[in-house]
């Protein structure tokens, strides 16, 4: 089973909760799909099983021995990516117009390494992540590759996918064809706005959606609004997680929050997870009965 943790808004506590859930179950596959700012790996030591180059797209390369310095490439480039026969790869979009116009065939499109995909064997399941090159974009293509690689090792075990903020391409690639989504929101104005946007996306893709509110007690009124919103939209609300200084301590010490026995947040996350499992179990039973 695959569960993706997303939020719409950034900084609501996705990774904290994703790590907690991954630790509550044994041998979970962990995929860090927040490729722009991966930090799931900070919690885990292990042995790298695989490091692989990822190419996000093509860039132009110049064969200087063939270049006649005619300047046609520079005149055709809409991105000002080529000057005096030298390519600025940060500007090059890989469209290939210069390749077509070059009379001496000095230009060609080559795959550009934009990230490295890393699979690490932790003591409790495989962690899959990517390290991107400076200037490259987090893309749905990269997310899809990460999930495919992870799937090969996870098998039937639970796979926790730590998603990225927003509602764009990488997020879409993180939730398509997953079984379940957990939205971690927070009771702030932007938290609510972004929750509504991400819910719309989840509904479009028809994935089973759970919602929890992190730092719920920082604004009781908005927290209630969120719960009402979930109720009227048929979303399964699984719990309020209170603001808790222990979470900061957990992040600083890089120890998952579930190992702090006195933590209020820890208790709330455990209860939310129980509710999610109960829901998933109930719906699975229903489907079995139907068959």
């Amino acid at each position, binding site marked *: 089973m695959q569960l993706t943790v997303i939020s719409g808004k950034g900084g609501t506590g996705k990774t904290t909760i994703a790590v907690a859930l991954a630790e509550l179950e044994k041998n979970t596959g962990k995929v860090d799909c927040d490729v722009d700012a991966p930090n799931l790996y900070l919690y885990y030591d292990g042995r790298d099983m695989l490091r692989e180059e990822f190419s996000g797209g093509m860039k132009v390369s110049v064969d200087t021995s063939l270049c006649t310095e005619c300047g046609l490439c520079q005149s055709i480039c809409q991105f000002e990516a080529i000057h005096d026969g030298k390519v600025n790869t940060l500007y090059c979009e890989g469209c290939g117009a210069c390749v077509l116009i070059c009379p001496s065939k000095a230009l060609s499109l080559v795959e550009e390494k934009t990230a490295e995909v890393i699979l690490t064997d932790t003591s409790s399941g495989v962690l899959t992540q990517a390290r991107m090159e400076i200037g490259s974009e987090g893309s*749905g293509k990269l997310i899809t590759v990460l999930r495919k690689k992870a799937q090969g090792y996870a098998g039937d075990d639970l796979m926790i996918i730590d998603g990225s903020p927003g509602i764009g391409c990488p997020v879409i690639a993180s939730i398509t064809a997953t079984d379940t989504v957990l939205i971690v929101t927070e009771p702030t104005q932007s938290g609510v706005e972004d929750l509504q946007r991400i819910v719309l996306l989840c509904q479009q893709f*028809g994935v089973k959606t759970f919602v929890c509110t992190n730092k719920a007690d920082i604004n009781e009124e908005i927290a209630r609004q969120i719960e009402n919103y979930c109720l009227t939209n048929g979303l399964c609300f699984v719990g309020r997680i209170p603001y808790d200084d222990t979470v900061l301590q957990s992040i600083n010490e890089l120890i998952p929050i579930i190992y702090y026995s006195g933590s209020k947040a820890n208790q709330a996350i455990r209860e939310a997870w129980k509710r999610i499992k109960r829901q998933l179990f109930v719906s699975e039973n229903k489907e079995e009965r139907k068959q």
Partner: protein
Amino acid sequence: MKIAITGYGQELKDNHDPRFGRCTYFLIYDTEQGFLKALENKGQLSEGGAGIAAAQQIIDEDVQVVLTGNMGPNAYNLMEKSGVKVYRCKTNSCQEALELYQDGKLSELNEAGPSHAGMK
């Protein structure tokens, strides 16, 4: 009439892929001539806008019906404007999806989806 089924492999017996934009292959089936070919989805290679790239391929291929798990808004709008009908299915193999469609057991995907009440 041509039908496209999103799949992981190149044959009808292979697994059905519930994703549209980033599925591996489109299996093209003709209601008169039977299975025609497996078309590699160009969408899976694009950094962004995979759904649109995939939809363009479907339209270029003159397909009238798509059988997939789900579709994002961009791809769906293109399908709708081009008169391509999209059916939602959740099966193991592509063959199964095709049979369910032929038996009239699949429901058409409509953009509205579940309730949007409370949305701005």
